[in-house]
């Protein structure tokens, strides 16, 4: 057994799976359905000041499909809640009262003046909510009005608003970051400096999903025009993982809790985010694609994996991969591998050959009978053949033992670590000790 109960910056939930601030958390009806399905908490869809905003009345979502219409990525141009503030506040209060063991965090986005923030924080506090999340992330619509990612792209604003919020509420403050910047560490540091209790990331990535080649309108199309939206779903997970890791290993952000967001679809995705430093995770697209019941697979899968591996609780996995995230210059150049093709498993499709021959290092030979073999003298261990092979574990990368000769270079593989910092080709190398 493993304990997957979560305590994230003092906010407790029966599991680390929260629904992110988004369409699924806009109303009591949805949130109660989510809690019944087993979600550990929600971040209520972003509240703003009255008069409430309006949404487009045409399509809000665009999708990038994989095979069989599998949703790989989703883009939206929906804005923050389009319901009156009082209605949302009343529902938040009621739901928190009825579901006291679930996390209730409220996302906020108001204009960049202290009065606006002070006012809404007091109202949210009155609902009994567990915390607030400052939406500095949404890249579409609200950013044109100086909110959302318009704030998140300016570290000074992040720090300023975070400080106002910390000064005006006793609730924990999570700052939600936009990925639409060049270096995620700057906004994270600003949030920390402003006193944030945590950051959550990533919000959505600015995007156009596709173009209608008859009307030449971007999708989703509103009367022949399109506007960039926020991209999310499985497609953005690698971007999110990197940004979470960048913050987790940044000395200036040390100790700053992270709520991981971005394409989490199964328990495994969640475990990866947590291994890279996330204390909990937030999910949206998976729920929008499959419904709320997916949380049952996520919770059961995470618990089972942790039990199997002997991880007693979430603290035992959080950040476990962070020490292994390093800079390229520190990667061991003496780690020499070669591709190996398991002829028993090979189905002779030849994709490894086409990829290597056309686009890599001409390191795969075709022998009579469509037998594909690696030419060690040419193989640079790029892994492309492994990546394009349709059969799992058919092609593997095998390490050359120290002392062996690499047929490509003719050099003996050293036993010790050797990286760019000491490499003779590096003009700025440091002398080996």
């Amino acid at each position, binding site marked *: 057994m493993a304990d997957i109960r979560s305590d994230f910056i003092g906010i407790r939930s029966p599991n680390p799976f929260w629904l992110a601030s988004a369409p699924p958390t806009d109303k009591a009806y949805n949130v109660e359905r989510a809690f019944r399905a087993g979600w550990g908490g929600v971040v209520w869809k972003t509240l703003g000041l009255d008069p409430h905003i309006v949404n487009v009345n045409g399509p809000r979502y665009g999708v990038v499909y994989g*095979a*069989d*219409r599998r949703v790989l990525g989703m883009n939206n141009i929906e804005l923050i809640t389009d319901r009156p503030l009082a209605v949302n506040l009343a529902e938040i209060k009621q739901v928190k009262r009825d579901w006291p063991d679930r996390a209730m965090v409220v996302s906020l986005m108001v204009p960049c003046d202290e009065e606006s923030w002070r006012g809404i924080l007091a109202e949210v506090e009155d609902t009994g909510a567990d915390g607030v999340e400052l939406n500095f992330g949404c890249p579409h619509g609200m950013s044109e009005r100086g909110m959302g990612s318009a704030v998140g792209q300016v570290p000074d604003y992040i720090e300023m608003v975070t400080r106002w919020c910390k000064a005006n509420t006793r609730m924990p403050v999570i700052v939600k970051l936009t990925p639409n910047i060049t270096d995620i560490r700057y906004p994270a540091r600003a949030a920390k400096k402003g006193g944030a209790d945590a950051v959550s990331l990533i919000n959505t990535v600015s995007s156009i999903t596709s173009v209608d080649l008859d009307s030449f309108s971007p999708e989703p199309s509103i009367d022949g025009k399109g506007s960039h939206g926020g991209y999310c779903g499985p497609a953005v997970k690698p971007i999110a993982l990197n940004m979470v890791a960048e913050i987790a290993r940044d000395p200036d952000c040390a100790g700053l809790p992270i709520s991981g967001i971005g394409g989490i679809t199964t328990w495994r995705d969640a475990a990866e985010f947590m291994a890279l430093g996330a204390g909990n995770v937030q999910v949206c697209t998976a729920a929008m694609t499959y419904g709320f019941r997916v949380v049952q697979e996520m919770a059961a899968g995470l618990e089972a994996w942790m039990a199997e591996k002997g991880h007693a609780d979430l603290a035992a996995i959080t950040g476990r991969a962070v020490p292994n995230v390093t800079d390229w210059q520190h990667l061991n150049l003496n780690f020499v591998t070669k591709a190996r093709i398991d002829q028993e498993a090979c*189905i*002779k*499709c*030849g*994709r490894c*050959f*086409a990829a290597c021959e056309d686009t890599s290092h001409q390191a795969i030979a*075709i022998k009579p009978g*469509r037998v594909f073999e690696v030419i060690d003298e040419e193989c640079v261990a790029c892994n492309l053949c492994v990546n394009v092979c*349709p*059969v799992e574990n058919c092609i593997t990368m095998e390490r050359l033992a120290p002392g062996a000769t690499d047929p490509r270079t003719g050099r003996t593989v050293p036993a010790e670590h050797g990286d760019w910092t000491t490499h003779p080709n590096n003009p700025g190398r440091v002398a080996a000790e």
Partner: protein
Amino acid sequence: MTASQTAKPAETAAASHPDSSGAARTPGIAPGRLPPERLAGNFADLHPPLSAHEALVAADRCYFCHDAPCVTACPTGIDIPMFIRQIAAERPVEAARTIFEANILGGICARVCPTETLCEEACVRETAEGKPVEIGRLQRFATDAQMATGAHPFARAAETGRRIAVVGAGPAGLAAAHRLAMLGHGVTVYDAREKPGGLNEYGIAAYKAVGGFAGREVDWLLGIGGITIRHGRLGAELTLDALAAGHDAVLLAMGLAGVNALGAAGEELPGARPATAFIAELRQAADLSALPVGRNVVVVGGGMTAIDAAVQSKLLGAETVTIVYRRGRGSMPASRVEQDHAAAAGVAFRFWARPVAALGEGALREVEFEYTRAGDAGLEGTGETFRLPADQLFTAIGQVLEGAPEGIALERGKIAVDAEGRSSRPGVWAAGDCAAGGDDLTVTAVAEGRDAAMSIHRSLTGD
């Protein structure tokens, strides 16, 4: 094709069960054993076309193999990974062009090819999962899409002034005629039958080419222009000498019009006939409920003709249909998928037996068989016999070349050809079933016709 092949025969088997009216048990050879709506269901498309979404899903399974084994396995060498990728990229009409460049009869081949022993057998996903990419059905999806445009996909080159005679408007002759016409030559195709198409029109099971597909395909193919079809039979209205004298080249592609005789006593009894004649009659029948079939049907043979005759007899409402083959199941030329299809339709199989006598007074009643075994000197009878009740006996023990022109060298009863399809007579080529070699498949005939056409073109133009 395997996925639907497991589903469809069960439906047809159920649909072909004799109904309670007793019409199915009418003695002798009688029409109307099944009500018209049951017949319509039984003879519907064997493999329903893929929907657009199904095609995308099926196409996505293709790995786009390097030097793909499916292409090697295709007698016409269609660039299968490319056409499937074009389907996946939502350009089915361009996918069809890729197919037609190699095989102008890609439409019928998508329906009748034994893909389970050709491209789909070679598919790496067959190796990986025992479930190949549905190449046949994807090919049909693409070719149907192109043919639905009503346009012919190729433009004819400028007239060369050369004239070529093609004898036979079957797959080999049509493929050759199209290629020659496309290259600018003038082609006259002579066929002995009323309609062009050869076995596509007269020979394959009806449920493989529903809706008059064979005829529509010929009309579409002729859209290239430069092809005239005339009625004529070599040895009757036509002579090779006259054709050779009036044309720059002659291609013989008349197929195998004759059938092997059973060599059993009583085979002249009414009720005994070649399976090919029954299939041709069925294919041309305007009303299947008027087509008579026996209550008890026996089919002798082990190839596709035997299967098609047996299954269609069952679908017409015969109470019992039995295929009797002189060797074991593994030796049957018909693929296992075809055998299973027949079995699912309710056809019974008897192996290691050969007919010795057709019995009956004025009409067939029984067929007597002798058990066989593999002896040292080949197949031999055991002396032990059995009888099967039979109102109809269809023989499907091979077709033979009929009316081979004088002075042309033969090889095992077929026209001897070199690698280019040239016969022993200068200026005369041969392709398809009438030419030696090959495996008597539609797709092989198409490849041979196409290749012979290219050889003719080279000889005429010096290219």
